[in-house]
């Protein structure tokens, strides 16, 4: 006796589907229901239905809206710099050809490092007093004082400083993906453009980037989603400080839940955050990616 293929396929997919339903979908439902309750953080504490009051509180709080903008700014900084550096490195490796292969491999090493270690490492490099970067800049005569910049203590630039480990960790990924895309550009096309007198900038903006478009879109969307969820590197470097100047959405939700003991409010924030992520991601997929079109 043979069950039909359709049923057999379903049978193969069921374990994974059940797993995702129980351990992802169900917690999400819990998150959404919790967002309508006032919950006492103590074990066996009270739950009181309060409707959308948590949402009203979230949207009304400056901490929440600021964290939203900060997350957006952080994501933009990370993705822009990673893309620029990654494209630069990918072009460099392509122009050097096959003999750069071993260096391409070496360039991948940060991808294997835990974000928590990267955050720690860069904190150590940028920290006031015994941070190496300030000292080297001072010894080179660029700064008057090793602590002049205050990478992690100056609220105006801290959002940029906490982004550095993230950029360091995943520029390799951008580079790898863009490099793979570059290998698929037919050499004759570049040759032909050169013969027509195209200079390097025209070559880059008129030919290479448009041809790389699908690859770029995937890389940007994948990295954008990851950057918007950044948590480890920021927590270890500044814990959101100073003055919440580096408190992104993940950190705010974590602190609301753990430190301030308000799971209901944190769930409402989490729900809004999740919906915003889904909305932006689908928008990005629909506009930048344009699946189905040919450029």
């Amino acid at each position, binding site marked *: 006796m043979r069950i039909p293929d*359709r049923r*057999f*396929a379903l049978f*193969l997919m069921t*374990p*994974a589907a059940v*797993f*995702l339903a129980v351990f*992802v979908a169900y*917690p*999400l439902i*819990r*998150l959404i229901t919790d967002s309508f309750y006032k919950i006492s953080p103590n074990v066996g504490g009270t739950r009181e239905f309060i409707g959308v009051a948590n949402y009203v509180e979230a949207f009304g709080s400056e901490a929440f809206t600021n964290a939203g903008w900060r997350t957006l700014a952080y994501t933009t900084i990370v993705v822009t710099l990673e893309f620029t550096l990654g494209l630069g490195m990918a072009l*460099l490796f*392509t122009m*050097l*050809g*096959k003999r750069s292969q071993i*260096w391409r*491999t070496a360039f*991948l090493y940060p*991808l*294997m*490092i835990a974000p*928590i*270690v990267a955050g*720690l490492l860069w904190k*150590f490099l940028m920290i006031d007093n*015994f941070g*190496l970067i300030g000292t080297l800049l001072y010894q080179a005569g660029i700064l008057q004082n090793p602590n002049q910049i205050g990478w992690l203590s100056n609220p105006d630039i801290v959002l940029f400083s906490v982004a550095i480990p993230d950029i360091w*960790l*995943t520029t390799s*990924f951008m580079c*790898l*993906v863009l490099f*793979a895309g570059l*290998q*698929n550009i*037919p*050499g004759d096309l*570049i*040759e032909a453009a*050169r013969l027509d007198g195209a200079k390097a900038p025209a070559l880059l903006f008129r030919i*290479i980037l448009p041809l790389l478009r*699908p*690859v770029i879109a995937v890389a940007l969307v*994948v990295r954008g989603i990851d950057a918007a*969820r950044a*948590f*480890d590197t920021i*927590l*270890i470097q500044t814990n959101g400080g100073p003055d919440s100047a580096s408190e992104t*959405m993940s950190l705010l939700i*974590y602190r609301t*839940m753990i430190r301030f003991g308000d799971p209901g409010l944190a769930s409402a924030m*989490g*729900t809004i955050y*999740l919906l915003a992520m*889904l909305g932006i991601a689908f928008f990005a997929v629909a506009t930048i990616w344009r*699946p189905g079109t040919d450029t």
Partner: protein
Amino acid sequence: MSIAQTPDNGALPTPDVANRPRRAGFAARVSADDRSEIPLATATAPPLPTTEAPASTPRRRRRYNAEGLEAGKRSTRTLLWILLAAAMVLYGFPFLYLLFTSFKTPIDTIAVPPTILPREWTLENYINALGRSGVLPSFINSVQTAIISTLLSLVLAIPAAYGITRYKTPSGRVFIMAALVTRMVPPVAIGIPLASMMAGVGLADTPIALSIAHTTISLPLSIWLMSSFFEAVPQDLEEAATVDGCSRLGALWRVVIPVVSGGIAVTAIFAFLASWNEFLFALLMTAIRSQTTPVVIANFQTQFGLDWGSMTALAAVFSIPVILLTLLLQRKIVAGMTLGAVKG
């Protein structure tokens, strides 16, 4: 990967992308290129005698299909090599500094002004870090959690990916989309409900609970990767097997799985890395018994004041095995990452 984060890498949904031949071909080409990079001939290369020209001819034609972009002039190439050297130094330095620092004496670690190389090389930081209570057990926990999570990911992802790619049912398409949307869920959003669920069934603070949480991250990526690998297996293979009297499950187990064993290895590496490096779930779901090393590293900062020396030593011990492992397996990893990202 985002394997990374990095490691935490993966792909995004696009409507029924698995069925669009253009992209599938693209990914296949990319991975074919990556495989053939190690031996100095590429599969796509036409066997022209001129391509064997010695490197000393500055304007020689190259075999790469990206030949148009390769720099021809010797002066340009020299300049590019200098640029690359500078980039590599800048990129490699932070981790080297971490290593150097771990060999300093604990006091020199925070000396003002700091030095790059240790004034005195010592293993003191390593002895302090590894001797601290909870550090060695945390390594055992990390290994345990990562292995359980990897196995769980593979056991669930292999049949699911096979079902999706081989039968192409509408439910399969819905499922792969749903699995990929999972990637957008911020861990902080499901961490707390997940932790309380685990506590509810008596699994609080166990490696099992944490590996289940880690599998929510690695499973969607594993399904995506395995789907790409199954896509490349010709269907005739199991048809022949079923004609010979194998059941469909038997054909999957005895014929298809051996063919994609390389792909399974890639997927396993990514699942392992995702769990090994994960921090947020570990922070939320473990207390004392099942703490993994990333949590212990982070705790150095609060629990014992600022012990930078031990922290750098522990970070080095934690990172180096993974870096070495992945450099050894780099060909597979490059193929996997490119597949995971470009295919999407």
